[in-house]
């Protein structure tokens, strides 16, 4: 991860400077976090152009809301919350939060074993991405926040504004749906 090289202390210093109107400090924050925000939004929207636009919008909103940021909130989580809300607004406006049924046509995996382990991994990855796209928005966001962004249940609950128990059950439901979809496409229990 690009932001891994820099710690939260660097973030805080830049944030304080950005709060005083230092655009260069804010640009450094964007550089650190843009990939994280982009990949999260991309997997929510399934569109590169839309994700690019929403990522920019999210950072501009963050710039405007920066005076309200408090050190108690992790900056990256705060950014993801802004991005998530912006994405949800956009998808609602375009009425694209309609959720697809789960018993659908996922791409079939090649039944023959791949010549290399990397090929098999790529195939599994492609299947998983396709299965993710079929998840309802509220399950997809929770599984992305946990599996990709590695947020704790408490952080996810705070970000989504729901109880931790809701995160726990929603996550279990999302994983169960993903496993079921992958099992159907491969025909085998989803095990490595």
């Amino acid at each position: 991860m690009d932001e891994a090289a820099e710690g939260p202390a660097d973030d805080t210093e830049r944030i304080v400077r950005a709060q005083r109107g230092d655009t260069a400090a804010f640009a450094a924050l964007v550089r650190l976090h843009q990939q994280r925000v982009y990949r999260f939004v991309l997997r929510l929207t399934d569109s590169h152009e839309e994700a690019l636009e929403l990522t920019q919008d999210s950072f501009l909103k963050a710039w405007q809301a920066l005076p309200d940021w408090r050190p108690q909130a992790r900056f990256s989580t705060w950014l993801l919350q802004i991005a998530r809300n912006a994405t949800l607004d956009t998808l609602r406006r375009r009425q694209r939060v309609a959720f697809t049924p789960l018993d659908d046509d996922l791409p079939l995996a090649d039944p023959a074993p791949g010549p290399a382990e990397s090929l098999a991994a790529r195939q599994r990855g492609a299947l998983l991405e396709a299965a993710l796209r079929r998840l309802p928005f509220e399950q997809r966001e929770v599984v992305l926040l946990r599996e990709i962004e590695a947020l704790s249940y408490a952080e996810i609950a705070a970000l989504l504004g729901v109880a931790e128990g809701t995160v726990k059950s929603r996550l279990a439901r999302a994983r169960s749906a993903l496993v079921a979809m992958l099992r159907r496409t491969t025909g085998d229990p989803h095990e490595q």
Partner: protein
Amino acid sequence: MNNEDCPRTVALSALIDDELAPAPRQAVLEHAARCPLCGTELAELRALHADFATLPEPAPGADLAGLIETRLRVEARPRPSPRPSPRPRLRDRLFPLGLRGLLMPAAGAAAALVLGLQLGNLLLMPSTDEARPPRFVAMAVFEPIAPGGLCPPAGACFQPGGAR
């Protein structure tokens, strides 16, 4: 089989995330070791978790930081404040159309005045022509040459043998 609402699935999922307290965690692990259904499901959840770690890392492919910084600088740049407009002069307030707006109505008014004076003079000026007494020409019909006539018959103008 649909396990998504099964409390066992919720516990197994939380186990994967290391979000269980030590005692429940131990209990779930022991159960999964004995129960083939839970054992299979736990293996599937672990495989799914491992698959997520192999997903590619999509990149925006553009320097958003540069774009955003430029945009913020442009928006933050103080805009030149519009110069205060000077107080409009009296002439401008009276004649907002300028000199042309002043001359056009003045010329029209002058022409109307001159024409009015001319007409007034004509009416007031005493007439120089004396009234002529009417000419009575009614009896002229009795003259040898009728009014407007050219000549009477040729014999009437030239009497034979001399002047009349």
